[in-house]
């Protein structure tokens, strides 16, 4: 049982992180908070991939004549690409938030929804 927990607790911590981000994305009304949650969610997934690449007693995947066993380099490559893509999505999301703020003067989701409802009710602007 202890062996089981020792081998798996890492994954459970990643899941906790991911769920913290997920909660921020669906429960918080502030749009910047949602983006922060999205970032936490993404990094938790990256952490999961990197931990899959780890081999016990392995060294960093760089050629070294004393190395016995290397860590798996492929997830590292995958996540390098993913980090850059995640920054791109964050940038676009933030630009959208700035536009929304310019239009509505707020970043609170429920206020924005109320304003659009009002607009529809009164017909246009």
């Amino acid at each position: 049982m202890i062996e089981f927990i020792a081998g798996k607790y890492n994954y459970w911590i990643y899941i906790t992180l991911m769920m913290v981000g997920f909660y921020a994305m669906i429960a918080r009304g502030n749009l910047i908070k949602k983006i922060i949650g999205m970032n936490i969610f993404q990094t938790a997934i990256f952490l999961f991939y990197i931990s899959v690449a780890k081999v016990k007693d392995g060294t960093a995947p760089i050629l070294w004549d004393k190395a016995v066993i290397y860590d798996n380099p492929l997830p590292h490559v995958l996540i390098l690409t993913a980090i850059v893509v995640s920054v791109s999505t964050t940038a676009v999301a933030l630009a959208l938030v700035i536009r929304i703020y310019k239009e509505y003067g707020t970043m609170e989701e429920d206020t924005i929804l109320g304003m659009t409802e009002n607009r529809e009710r009164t017909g246009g602007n």
Partner: protein
Amino acid sequence: MIDFILLFFLVVCAIAAVRMKDLLSAIIILGAYSLVMAVVWTRMNAVDVAFTEASVGAGITSVLLLAALSRTQRGEDDRRRRTEDRRHDAEDTRQDMEDRRRGAEERRRKTEFSTRTKKTGISAHSLLSLIVVIVTGAVLVYGTIDMPDYGDPDAPANLHVAPRYIERSYKDTGAENFVTAVLASYRGYDTLGETTVIFTAGICVILLLRRKREQ
């Protein structure tokens, strides 16, 4: 042990960043979170990824968030304070009646809406989100039961193509770093696609934030 402490610190940072009402504090905590994440990845021997996270994740993401914050507002959930501010402004500057009437109407509409959601929506919404999050987390934890242990050399992920890259990439490409060899040589077109993604994102940001020319 140090690994466990670092991971625990990550969880603390994440929860603090999500719970913080002040957005500037939340962003700074997120930067600390990214930096601890870089340390964790260094501990896992993913040095290239750790570098990228420290510079791009902790650096550029924080800068982008701060830039967005400087163009919007700092506080979260400060609707009440904002309307109060507006009321003070109206009292101080004695704007003309038309404006004030319209402002009051808008304010009334807004408070009407917010009390409505407060009565029926908010708590039920966060409770529902909590249930969704817990159920999703439980399903994921159930999924880890079949996962190979952390650091298992016989895990399927480490058996199929990875040894081939480790054995041959130096001969094939001349790069001593296997990650670089795969990123820049074997998967060079994919990296080109990645720069296309950044380019597209840059164009999106420019189009969204472009100021309309005055007619």
